[in-house]
């Protein structure tokens, strides 16, 4: 049974873009039906356009995806968890603003805990060197041969401020992790300690690089190598 004009207008108001056979038949049943369908479609376009909130951006997506990459809490992170809870209680800020690492120190430690050892296991002298330039190019960065010859693995990674690169590098005292953070600037070089590891922060024009290794690896000795080898390409 076909719709009368009043029913058709109500139907359009509920489902203006419906194109099932019954709707098309009703639409073809007279010029006023056709005009009503055109008007409803016009209004719908305006409505859809008006509701088109801009996408929140890649960083937001990274934040969401980092949820699945987050490591399980380990005992030495109870202190951080406790301070996070205190922050929530004191300032009332929302969980996502505090649940991710807030400082570069926290970030470096959490990041290394998460996949530092795993990536170290992937280090190989057979590593395809073209990956190095491909990954760094995505960050508008390049590297001198002196460093690239030592890179045994590299991948893009999330950082506190956009994307960065996580590298496994052969130092004179064994394999170390380097997390390069192009969007993060620290004011000066410094060393942080977490567990049995230490991270030396190299502050340079291209951002910050955290060189992570055991205390006996003297990671700060790689300062000049990193500083002189990583550079912006644009």
């Amino acid at each position: 049974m076909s719709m009368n004009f009043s029913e058709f207008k109500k139907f359009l108001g509920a489902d203006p873009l419906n194109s099932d056979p019954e709707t098309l038949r009703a639409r073809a049943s007279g010029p006023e039906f056709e005009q009503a369908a055109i008007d409803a479609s016009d209004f719908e376009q305006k409505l859809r356009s008006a509701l088109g909130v801009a996408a929140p951006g890649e960083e937001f997506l990274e934040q969401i995806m980092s949820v699945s990459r987050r490591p399980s809490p380990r005992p030495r992170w109870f202190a951080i968890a406790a301070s996070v809870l205190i922050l929530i209680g004191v300032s009332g800020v929302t969980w996502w603003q505090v649940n991710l690492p807030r400082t570069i120190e926290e970030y470096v430690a959490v990041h290394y805990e998460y996949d530092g050892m795993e990536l170290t296991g992937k280090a190989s002298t057979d590593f395809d060197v073209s990956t190095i330039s491909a990954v760094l190019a995505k960050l508008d960065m390049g590297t001198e041969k002196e460093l690239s010859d030592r890179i045994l693995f590299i991948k893009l990674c999330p950082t506190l401020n956009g994307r960065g690169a996580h590298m496994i590098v052969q130092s004179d005292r064994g394999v170390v992790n380097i997390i390069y953070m192009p969007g993060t600037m620290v004011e000066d070089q410094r060393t942080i300690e977490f567990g049995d590891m230490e991270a030396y922060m190299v502050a340079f024009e291209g951002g910050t690089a955290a060189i992570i290794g055991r205390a006996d690896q003297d990671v700060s000795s790689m300062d000049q190598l990193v500083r002189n080898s990583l550079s912006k390409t644009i």
Partner: protein
Amino acid sequence: MSTEAERNIRFEKLARQFSTDLYRYAMWICGNDALAKDLVQETYLRALKALDSLKNEKAAKSWLITILRREYARTFERKAPKFTDIESVSVQEDDELEPDERVERQLLRQGMASLPPRYREPLLLQVVMGHCCAEISAQLGVSKSAVMTQLFRARELLKKKLQEDGVTGNVHELF
């Protein structure tokens, strides 16, 4: 590939596929950028924990919306947040609009923000999330005919808003 790796890949796929639409939906139900992002993040956190319960990938979008709606209801069960940011949230191609089109769009956005939730929500599910009437019916737990009525009334209220605020044009042909 380990089970955990598979879960992560599955989760990231859901994030890439639906996070923008969920953010837009959240933005229109709470009207605040930070709250909307918070809601979406909380939704994905809960989705990750319950990922194994999602058996059919085709149902993922509805599943995520259900989580988000529950989270919104739980968070704001006593008091709905005030719409604060909708007017300032940027919309693509704004510069290409004629001045009267821009006014019309602004009125529609204001109208949408002021719609009672029982009308706003089905309309958002249809327009922003691309749900059909049957899916909205299932999501909201009301009959399909009730959904049709709510959608019709929602659009009528928006058209009325445009009419009352003096916007002319073919929109008026609909009355």
